[in-house]
């Protein structure tokens, strides 16, 4: 059998294991198989010294912290044979309680990214980079540092709250007080400024969404990127999921409906920039009508509130006065919270809008209840765009001698008008610690690649009271060094005062020194050793820091409340954060590139969201390129017609358009920073709004989107009901066909007969002495469509990414997809529904009987199984699958010699060894994570105890921040899944086909305004 026609097993076959071993420096993986070309015998390489805590074939888990965004979730890293293969949330961690978003799942593709900087690089005279040794590199930096003038060393980092930040500060002072600039493109300057203005507090508020029954969001994308999305998703679902006959309500006030808006019960689209006025008008009504116990000091803002009557605001914002009055009444009727806008609402008056929302919360009495303050809390680490602008100005003036950049990519992620790249060129010596050759690293003279967060010792404080530890979960993949160690080493080489300053010889020692302090701070008893080991085991230490309330600051009455407005005749461009790529740092992760945008379902590129009316006026159809131009510049991207933007708004996501940053990111889509104004706004941040004009260019491309028909055509795929209906009666599923087309008595006979058919067979099933029937319940009133499950599924099941051209042909392999359907629009309220669609594991699966070779069949434990190595690839099963959840290997994604190879070295190291990597020509699909089921059954059998409900969690269930997915045994009447399956909201998709799926969906419930 020819080798190229074979599938690859996770732990086997054609991955170049020899290289893996060499690079890893560990001598082998137990029973690692290594094979070359056909005919050559397989080799087994033993360990030289067996690692103490690892058994070949058995996973070891390490607790560490996700550093993909400032959220700082705790993760457990699954390590097999010395390599990390999966990340899961740390259930003990207070931020995420075991959940993880798509970006967190994709951290694996950071550590194994094929475009990582593999060794120190120095710029040559020709402008290219050449690899150099660490000794050489360190020597070069030390020389420069020695010759740099006092105070001319600048250190630019991302948010590094924790020990590393402390080290940077200390290190700079050891080298004579340089300047440390923190830059996160998605900073919270506006909110920080507003909090300072309104309450006199330097720090961001906590929003206790779980304690609010009514959430009024003025453009906060808290399900996507705002503050701490995983945590906020959990808190939001706790309030908003339909349970025990009630649920909260979310009203989203924003001109572009994002993922958060899609989850709202009501979407109100004000004139862009006026959402602050709406907030003030609501506050006005509350105070006017005494709807809440208004604090006494509200009198100080009386003037402001008086000026913003609903009628006055209605005219400017386009939100009817009645609506404002209604919102005010609803807002005060139960516990509530108002949220200020995120990056996608950051216009020039964003601080005023945020201040208005603060005032609204204040007059409604929410401050101190659902809104609390902990000074110093800032998930962007005190980032300031103004600081970056200062750095650029200083560089232009020749005031920067040495620039060190760590964890920031301002050349990409700052407005083009700032000219950061040109500014950098004015600096004589630039050192980058980037792990990737990104746009900023490209401008550096020397690159000293840092370890990936999964390879390093570090810590991080996502918020006051939470100290999260990072520990290396595997040996470094490349010849990289932790920046902390490099800084200490540089101090040592430089000698003198700098060397004397640090007693720690490694960053790990430095870290432990600080943790001794933390032990004292949190008052943990026991030896430091015990404290440290416990912290490592748990992933950190945390103390409950309950924020406090606040009262109005002195200067509050002097605040100005302006709205942003686009000049007459121009459109408003909203540059919003991409929920997958964040500020662009996720763009080199193929999983994130292939993850459909939760709103538009477009992958691998940029698009411009245009309202169909606007598009019709310009004669633009989907996929036609439009040019969006502002004073600052112009970008060209294909149009996506979307009723979720106002007709006077166009929207483009941040994150694409990289000119460097590796094969997956480069030359893809457009960088929306090119049209944003470079001037720091009053609050010190970037304005993500711009006045633009658009024009049709005549180019066309088929959008690489996974969406077919965006409407349900009345087929009841994603069903919804209203709270009122749920309270008054039963939920009636919208079925397009009646399920029971056979008389009942026949049904009964059929059932008995079928049981008999299984009877003998069941006796031979016997995995754990019982006969489970695996099933799943997905609660659509919880599911937000965030798509974390999709990426978790990619990670768990070795799903290949296929690239843009393949997605254009609909060939994405995502076993689990989030379908998004639009409802209403064209005058009706515009709504969206989402539904995770995966193999339904039908009892009467239509895919099974049509397979000529039994590759698709039903297991005794109720799974619809796909035996890859039996599959010959007729694809009949997929034709006959009404849910279209079967995926075919069109190319040889697993073959390193094939152009379609999906895991270029060393990306293949993230492959899950517990599951086959499928070869070309075979069908694959969701297995309900059968490797986890079989693994649990093995464990149960070995330990002699039965499997308990909840022992087996599928990858999607495990990571779901909203807890929307429940997996378990339907034959066990006490299991969560069987109880939930009886929920009155339960329905099966396309029930009329009598496929009898194992997945029950619970209809979404909308909490509509009572008329």
């Amino acid at each position, binding site marked *: 059998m020819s080798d190229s026609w074979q599938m690859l097993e996770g732990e086997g076959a054609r991955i170049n294991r020899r290289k893996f071993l060499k690079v890893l420096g560990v001598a082998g993986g137990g029973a690692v198989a290594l094979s070359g070309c056909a005919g050559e015998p397989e080799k087994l390489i033993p360990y030289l010294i067996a690692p103490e805590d690892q058994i070949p074939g058995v996973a070891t888990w390490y607790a560490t912290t996700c550093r993909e965004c400032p959220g700082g979730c705790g993760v457990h890293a699954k390590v097999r044979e010395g390599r990390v293969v999966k990340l899961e949330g740390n259930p003990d961690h207070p931020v995420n309680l075991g959940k993880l978003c798509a970006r967190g799942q994709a951290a694996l593709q950071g550590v194994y990214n094929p475009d990582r900087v593999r060794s120190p690089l120095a710029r040559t005279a020709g402008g290219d980079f050449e690899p150099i040794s660490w000794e050489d590199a360190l020597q070069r930096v030390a020389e420069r540092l020695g010759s740099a003038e006092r105070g001319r060393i600048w250190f630019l980092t991302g948010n590094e709250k924790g020990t590393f930040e402390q080290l940077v500060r200390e290190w700079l002072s050891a080298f004579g007080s340089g300047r440390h600039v923190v830059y996160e493109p998605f900073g919270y300057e506006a909110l920080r400024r507003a909090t300072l203005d309104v309450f006199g507090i330097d720090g961001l508020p906590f929003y206790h969404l779980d304690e609010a029954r009514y959430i009024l969001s003025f453009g906060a994308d808290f399900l996507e990127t705002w503050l701490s999305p995983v945590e906020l998703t959990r808190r939001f679902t706790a309030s908003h999921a339909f349970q025990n006959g009630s649920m909260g309500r979310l009203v989203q006030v924003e001109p572009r409906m994002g993922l958060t808006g899609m989850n709202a019960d009501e979407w109100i689209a004000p004139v862009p920039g006026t959402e602050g006025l709406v907030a003030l008008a609501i506050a006005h009504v509350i105070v006017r009508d005494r709807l809440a116990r208004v604090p006494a000091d509200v009198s100080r803002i009386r003037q402001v509130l008086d000026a913003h009557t609903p009628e006055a605001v209605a005219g400017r914002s386009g939100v009817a006065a009645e609506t404002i009055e209604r919102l005010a009444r609803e807002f005060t009727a139960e516990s509530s919270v108002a949220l200020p806008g995120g990056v996608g609402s950051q216009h020039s008056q964003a601080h005023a809008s945020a201040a208005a929302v603060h005032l609204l919360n204040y007059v409604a009495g929410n401050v101190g209840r659902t809104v609390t303050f902990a000074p110093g809390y800032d998930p962007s680490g005190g980032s300031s765009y103004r600081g970056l602008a200062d750095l650029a100005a200083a560089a232009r003036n020749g005031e920067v001698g040495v620039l060190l950049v760590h964890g920031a990519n301002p050349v990409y992620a700052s407005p083009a008008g700032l000219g950061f790249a040109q500014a950098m060129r004015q600096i004589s010596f630039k050192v980058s610690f980037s792990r990737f050759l990104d746009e900023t690293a490209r401008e550096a003279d020397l690159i000293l690649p840092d370890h990936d967060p999964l390879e390093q010792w570090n810590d991080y404080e996502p918020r006051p009271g939470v100290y999260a530890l990072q520990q290396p979960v595997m040996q470094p993949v490349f010849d990289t060094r932790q920046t902390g160690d490099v800084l200490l080493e540089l101090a040592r080489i430089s000698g003198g005062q700098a060397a004397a300053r640090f007693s720690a010889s490694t960053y790990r020692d430095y870290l432990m020194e600080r943790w001794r302090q933390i032990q004292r701070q949190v008052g943990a008893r026991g030896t430091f050793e015990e404290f440290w080991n416990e912290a490592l085991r748990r992933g950190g230490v945390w103390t409950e820091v309950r924020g406090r309330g606040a009262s109005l600051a002195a200067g509050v009455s002097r605040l100005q409340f302006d709205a942003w407005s686009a000049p007459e005749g121009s459109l408003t461009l909203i540059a919003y954060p991409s929920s997958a790529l964040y500020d662009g740092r996720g763009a080199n992760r193929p999983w994130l590139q292939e993850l459909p945008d939760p709103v538009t379902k477009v992958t691998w590129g940029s698009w411009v969201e245009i309202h169909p009316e606007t598009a019709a006026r310009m004669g633009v159809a989907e996929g036609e390129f439009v040019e969006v131009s502002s004073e600052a510049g112009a970008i060209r991207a294909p149009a996506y017609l979307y009723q979720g933007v106002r007709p006077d708004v166009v929207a483009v996501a941040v994150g694409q358009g990289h000119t460097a940053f590796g094969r997956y990111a480069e030359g893809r889509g457009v960088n929306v920073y090119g049209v944003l104004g470079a001037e720091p706004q009053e609050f010190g941040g970037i304005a993500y709004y711009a006045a633009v004009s658009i024009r049709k260019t005549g180019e066309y491309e088929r959008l690489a989107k996974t969406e077919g028909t965006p409407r349900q055509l009345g087929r009841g795929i994603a069903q919804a009901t209203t709270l009122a209906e749920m309270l008054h009666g039963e939920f009636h599923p919208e079925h397009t066909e009646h399920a029971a087309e056979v008389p009942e008595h026949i049904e009964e006979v059929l059932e008995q*007969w*079928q049981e008999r*058919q*299984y009877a*003998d*067979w069941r006796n031979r099933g016997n995995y754990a002495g019982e006969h489970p029937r695996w099933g799943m319940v997905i609660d659509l009133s919880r599911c937000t469509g965030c798509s974390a499950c999709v990426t978790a599924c990619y990670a768990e099941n070795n799903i290949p990414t296929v690239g843009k051209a393949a997605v254009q042909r609909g060939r994405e392999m995502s076993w689990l997809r989030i379908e998004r359907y639009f409802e209403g629009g064209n005058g009706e309220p515009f709504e969206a529904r989402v539904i995770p669609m995966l193999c339904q594991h039908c*009892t*009467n*699966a*239509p*895919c*099974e*009987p049509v*397979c000529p070779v*039994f590759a*698709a*069949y*039903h297991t005794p434990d109720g799974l619809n199984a796909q035996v890859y190595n039996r599959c010959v690839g007729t694809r009949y099963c997929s034709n006959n699958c009404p849910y279209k959840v079967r995926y075919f290997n069109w190319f040889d994604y697993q073959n390193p010699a094939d152009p379609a190879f999906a895991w270029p070295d060393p990306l293949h190291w993230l492959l899950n060894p517990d599951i086959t990597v499928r070869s070309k020509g075979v069908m694959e699909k969701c297995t309900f994570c059968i490797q986890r089921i079989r693994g649990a059954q093995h464990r149960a059998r070995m330990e002699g105890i039965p499997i308990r409900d909840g022992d087996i969690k599928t990858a999607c269930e495990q990571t779901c921040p909203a807890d929307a997915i429940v997996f378990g045994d339907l034959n066990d009447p006490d299991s969560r899944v069987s109880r939930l399956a009886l929920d009155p909201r339960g329905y099966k998709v396309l029930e009329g086909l009598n496929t*009898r799926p194992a997945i029950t969906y619970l209809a979404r419930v909308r909490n509509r305004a009572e008329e």
Partner: protein
Amino acid sequence: MSGPPGVLAAFQHVDAAVDAIRAVKELGYRDFTVYTPAPNHEVDKAVGHKVSPVRLWTLFGGLTGCAAGFAMTLWMSYDYPIVVGGKPLGSIPPYVVIAFELTILIGALSTIAGLLFHSWRTRRKAAYDPRFSDDHIGIFVPAPPERHAALRQLFIESGAVEVKVEG
């Protein structure tokens, strides 16, 4: 030709050939051979064979195929039982298709086998002439040399265009 001794006659006219065949039969010859370029009813009737036994082959082949079809599908379904689509392991309706196709296949092949077998069993060594596949009817009567003359006479009288004595 190294065939048996006998007399070979070629006819152009079908009624002449038929007359000749009748005459030969009257003389008591049974193992003579008649060649025709195409099937011909009159000749056929004159020779007067019984119905060919090939049809029995067809019958038994067909029955065997049908039984084999059902037996194979059912046995294989239970030998390694695999449940698909919530259907019973042995489902007769879909297996009818297989049984039907095998009925045809084995029936047809056994018909051919019957044709070959019976043609082989009833083959005779006899003189031949290429004209018999063109436009002549041929009759060959194997006979010992002493009766050749009589036969020759008979054929000429019947209207043979050519008579040849073999051996």
